[in-house]
């Protein structure tokens, strides 16, 4: 079913993207249910599409992204992300992705459901990379009394090295 859509496997991902994925492999089950149980965290996939809906909420945030296949068929992908409270606490800008935006998303695909994935990172229209630094970084900052700031989750996100 995946082959119907423009899904790029990780083998074709850029070095920059791979580095981002490596950072995020340390991310624990950020949502209420286990990310490890529900999503395949080994091989990320990439989709490119237009954001249809944005739901920043608890216990799971969600983007709905419309992806067009090579034959022009439109398919909605459901992209799960962390709970809203955690993203707020980690300083992630919840308004950085809006309906109508064109984005390239890196996802861990669902183990059971087609067209469902867990958010790893987004490349925005201006080429900047947007992601959540994750619970572990936040927790370690708290434990070490260090002020936490996740620049990748804000408008200060760094431009992507390669497109």
């Amino acid at each position: 079913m995946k082959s119907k859509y423009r899904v790029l496997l990780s083998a074709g991902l850029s070095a920059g993207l791979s580095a981002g994925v490596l950072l995020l492999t340390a991310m624990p089950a950020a949502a209420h249910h286990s990310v490890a149980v529900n999503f395949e965290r080994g091989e990320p996939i990439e989709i490119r599409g237009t954001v249809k809906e944005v739901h920043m909420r608890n216990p799971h945030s969600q983007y709905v992204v419309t992806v067009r296949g090579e034959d022009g068929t439109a398919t909605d992908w459901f992209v799960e992300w962390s709970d809203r409270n955690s993203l707020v606490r980690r300083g992630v800008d919840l308004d950085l992705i809006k309906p109508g935006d064109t984005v390239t998303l890196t996802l861990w695909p669902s183990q059971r459901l087609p067209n469902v994935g867990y958010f790893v990172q987004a490349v925005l229209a201006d080429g900047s990379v947007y992601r959540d630094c994750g619970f572990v970084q936040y927790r370690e900052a708290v434990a070490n009394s260090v002020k936490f700031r996740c620049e990748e989750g804000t408008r200060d996100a760094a431009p992507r090295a390669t497109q």
Partner: protein
Amino acid sequence: MNAASRICALLLASCAFTSAVHAAARADLDGVWLFYGSQVPDDPGLTPAGKEKLEQYDPLRDDADTDCKPVTFTNIMHTPSPPIEIRQRGDHVEINYEFMDVHRRVPLGGTLANAPYTVADHPHMGRSIGRYEGDELVIDTADVEAGYLDTLGLPGLPQSAQMRTEERFSATGDRLRVVVTHYDLVYYTKPMVMTYDFVRVDTEIMPWGCTLEGANYDKRLEAAEPASPNR
């Protein structure tokens, strides 16, 4: 000052000293705490009935969280991001779990047989009483709803309605440890112990406001479009 006045003064001073010592012992637990890790048993010691129940576990059907219904306190503490808050009062302890807006009020003293349901809108989480042993807060819980104990840390571990749980809270500085022992001879051959560590965090508990759309969209998607067998 006559003798009676002296005795009264001594009694008052004694009470004040005792209260101060007691408050000092309790004070460490107060605060907001962020999950910092857990230790779970390699082998929880499931009985044949426990193994059967575990094998039957379906996360899309049996995880009550997907209906915005908190599973158990054990499960909540395995939810890493939302912090918990402990406030010790005179005759009870409040534990506020950000996850699912669970507000637990545990009375200090009494017997478990007469203990109240401690989360008003979620009686399935059982009845509890608390007490102090030294500087440890000990909470005993019974009368939980049969089902699943854990859907996150060790997904699918079962619990029967006969399960008793003991939670021991102790703090050292900015670290909190909660040792949870589950006694359930229906599903476990031995006491099943889980240990949770937390770090004190300078934040406030935020409203959770669980939404069914946020909690169970994967379940609804599954119902709408079953995954193809070759996926």
